């Protein structure tokens, strides 16, 4: 059996950006970052396998290489962005009171931006030859 899909949305409804007021941007960026994650995680996983070990010396020397630091930075941006969009949808589905939904979304944004800032700062610090013990 094949499914038949019809859309009842009017172009006015789409251009008016609907109830979320942002049209398909959220949905589309979820797919764009998914594609980014697919490529960058494939690179990251193969790199983890190819690294001789995960000692401090191996990891910092590897991260400091420009052709490693740049894709790692892109991986952080793509994965944290994807994470924010994904968890937001889960919150919208499961948190049913408006106040709690607002608070939970705020907490999510703080968590994502905070953790991403830690990751980006640490990466750049290693790449630009910050303190090493």
């Amino acid at each position, binding site marked *: *059996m*094949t*499914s038949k899909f019809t859309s009842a949305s009017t172009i006015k409804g789409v251009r008016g950006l609907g109830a979320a007021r942002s049209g398909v941007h959220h949905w589309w960026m979820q*797919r764009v970052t*998914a594609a980014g994650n*697919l490529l960058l*995680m494939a690179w990251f*996983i193969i790199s*983890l*396998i*190819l*690294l*001789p*070990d*995960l*000692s*401090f010396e191996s*990891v*910092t020397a590897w*991260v400091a290489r420009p052709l490693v630091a740049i894709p790692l930075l892109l991986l952080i941006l793509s*994965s*944290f962005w994807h*994470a924010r969009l*994904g*968890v937001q949808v*889960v919150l919208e*589905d*499961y948190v*049913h*009171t*408006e106040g709690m939904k607002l608070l939970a979304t705020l907490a999510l944004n703080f968590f994502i931006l905070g*953790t*991403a800032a*830690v*990751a980006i*700062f*640490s*990466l750049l*610090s*290693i790449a630009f030859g*910050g*303190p*090493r*013990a």
Partner: protein
Amino acid sequence: MAHTRPLSPHLTIWKWRITMAISIMHRATGMALVFAGLLLFALWLLAAAAGKEAYEMFAGLAASPIGWLIWVGISWSFFQHLLSGIRHLLMDSGWGYELGVARASAIWVFVGAVLLTAAFWAAFCFGSGLV
């Protein structure tokens, strides 16, 4: 008004089917990847940036039995989410809505995730000279 109309998703009234299980698993693994995977990824980079002593403390905890359990859990979550995400992208393009195909692709995602997790750890341990 807030609770007089049905709100999604009705986890409690769904009949268990592999197609709904894979959907729930996509969300569950996604949450695990954010709150365990990305958090530990950031802490790993922070430890490396903080210096050898901090990094070795992180590495010591990471190599503990609980650490291994967490890494295996995160890696399986990743491959499960990856394959089910690819299934989502294919379905976005209109593929795979027929009942038989939707069931078969869901089964293949579950099987494939376990196989990829095993393959990753085999390659990782072999490549790192742990085996």
